[in-house]
């Protein structure tokens, strides 16, 4: 319990420092960058619950990012729900989706699982593209997302969106961290390292996997909701396979075995992307080479390397 309290204090401090820094500098590009980092960082951390801690390599995680963004945007556009209610409802819907998809996918081991998550994601992408009446098809949700005031918070103001995003980001990190440090979290690691043994010890392996899948989907959807709020819309590429690939790329860059690795990975990924895009249209070639170097050269993420140095086994 004491560890949790310390981590809560750390998260609070980090959140306060970030907000203070952004407020002091007041730079728009900085705020933009921090928002994107929070969104993709949360997305990558949520994916790492599956990849790093449960050993489930999902190639369809963007499905929840996209679903959360669309569900939230569509609910807000009806004008019937308040903002927090829409966010909670889309999280509930995403969890339900994750439950159904997860229940089907976790029946299969390893590579089959990757396959199937990818296939489901492409199904969702196809539905978004062709259900024009609801989703606006390839042009995305049109007309912006309305932001009625709630609890004195006005999300039409970019600064307040920033604050809410940061609070949501750090709160989510804390929540995920707490889950992963709980007995449940250690059970997931056991499932990852040796599922048959875990089963022999009486652990309901499938149920644990499904729970991890739903939790990951939930936070992935939250990242999607924040993204929808940030860009004031939702687009089909939120649910496209490339975003799933990028999620794994971020995890690999930053580190799989360290909790904050994916956040660092997201930061490096965004930095590389933004810099490379400025100089060349062969972004894919460049990113592909970087990825190869990391996978085949380092064979682990940057924070993994650092941690291995600090804590020699």
């Amino acid at each position, binding site marked *: 319990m004491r560890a949790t309290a310390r981590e809560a204090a750390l998260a609070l401090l980090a959140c306060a420092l970030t907000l203070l820094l952004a407020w002091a500098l007041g730079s728009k590009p900085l705020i933009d960058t921090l928002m994107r980092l929070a969104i993709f960082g949360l997305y990558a951390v949520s994916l790492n619950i599956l990849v790093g801690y449960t050993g489930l390599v999902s190639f369809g995680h963007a499905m929840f990012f996209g679903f959360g963004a669309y569900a939230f945007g569509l609910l807000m556009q009806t004008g019937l729900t308040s903002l927090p209610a829409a966010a909670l409802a889309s999280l509930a819907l995403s969890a339900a989706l994750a439950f159904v998809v997860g229940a089907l996918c976790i029946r299969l081991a390893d590579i089959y699982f990757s396959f199937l998550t990818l296939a489901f994601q492409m199904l969702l992408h196809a539905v978004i593209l062709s259900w024009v009446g609801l989703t606006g098809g390839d042009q995305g949700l049109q007309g912006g997302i309305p932001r009625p005031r709630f609890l004195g918070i006005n999300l039409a103001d970019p600064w307040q969106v920033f604050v809410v995003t940061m609070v949501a980001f750090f709160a989510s990190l804390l929540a995920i961290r707490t889950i992963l440090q709980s007995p449940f979290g250690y059970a997931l690691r056991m499932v990852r390292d040796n599922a048959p043994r875990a089963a022999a010890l009486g652990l309901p392996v499938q149920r644990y996997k499904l729970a991890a899948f739903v939790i990951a989907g939930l936070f992935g959807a939250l990242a999607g909701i924040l993204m929808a709020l940030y860009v004031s819309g939702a687009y089909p590429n939120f649910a496209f396979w490339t975003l799933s690939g990028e999620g794994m790329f971020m995890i690999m860059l930053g580190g799989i075995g360290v909790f904050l690795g994916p956040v660092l990975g997201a930061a490096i990924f965004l930095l590389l992307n933004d810099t490379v*895009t400025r100089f060349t249209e062969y972004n894919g070639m460049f990113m592909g080479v970087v990825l190869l170097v990391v996978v085949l050269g380092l064979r682990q993420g940057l924070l993994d390397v650092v941690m291995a140095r600090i804590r020699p086994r």
Partner: protein
Amino acid sequence: MAHSDFGRPGRRSVLKAGLVTGATLAMPFVARGASKQPIRIGQPSILSGRIAQLGISSRNAAQMVVDAFNAAGGLDGRTIELISRDSKGKPDEAARVVRELINNDGCQIILDSEASSGAFAVQEVVRETGTLCIHADSETTSLTADPKIRAPNAFRCARQVLHDSIVGGSYAAGIAKAQGLKRWMTCSPDYVYGRDSSSEFLDYLKVFEPSVEAVGATWPKLFAPDYTENVTRILETKPQALYSALYSGDLVSFIDQGNLYGLFDQVKFFAINMADYTTLHAVKKLPAGIYSCNRYLSTFPATKSNAEWSAAYDKRYNVLPLNWAWQNALAMQFLVEAIKKTGSDDGKVLAGALRGMTVESPFGAKGTVTMRAEDQTIVDYAIGWGVTIPQAPFVEGMEAADWTVIAARETEWKKQKGWA
């Protein structure tokens, strides 16, 4: 903590990694000369992936106009610098790139060469920043027609789906009447553009020739590799005429696969996007007698200035210009003329000059194109339909559209929508 799977890297592989990264970073870097403060125009576009052609031809065409302006001395020695940047076809990335161009690169003007989804994202950014913006590649009608989406600082210099549908409907109605084509079917890609294009075409076809009947529709997926099921479905329905909004590689695959079944011997084919040089060249056995709208043709309008522009583009880039090229060339021309006319680089001043501006252009139906003031979109550009032939000039019998008919129908349509 780390997985047992992830071994330690060798020192050499790390070194190699560093070298590769360094080399790749340095390669594309080109230093920009800076003398007198240039006027910076940012161009977000799609330069990679399946529709990289869009961005490349947009950039090429705009750059030609910029070079001519700079070579002629610019604005009192101030040159224009065009900064093109890849959004990879992602709308959220397009929005980011535009913000970056404005905030970090100091662009005062945005030439938006995004496809529709990106254009709507760009529209929201410039609405917020107030930056002058010309959309040069989005053909979606609502971008400028819908007053809720329109912005005072955003213009469109591109053709429009609604204009194309009115012209296509009226042309096809004439052929339907002459040849007794009653049973019509559509085969368009299953997404917004395909759906809108098909339904609006059929609407106007029925307006101009009420006796026609829509007997079916088949919707291949965008970028589908295989159209067999769509072709056999059309053969089964036995329409007399077929309309398609397929384009580029998809249209070529559809024609190749339709040819195997002799499809085009059995139906009159109206392919609105056929008359585009890449498509015309890519189809190795172009069936004679496909009806198409002009995307861009160097022979329509059949003027000297149009042929010369096409030849100059071909000479410089070694490829024939596409629809995106004329739209971007014209958009840049509008900007340049507004800059010359006002002697200013201020977005608000330029926007004032652009509203209602008429320029002489090879792409005008009658030699000029106007930026209509009321909805800030171009009119009087050349639209026509003709029939394909298998060799150059590929399309003959071009019939130019009547802009008074387009304008009348457009006003009526806007009234129905409550947008007029």
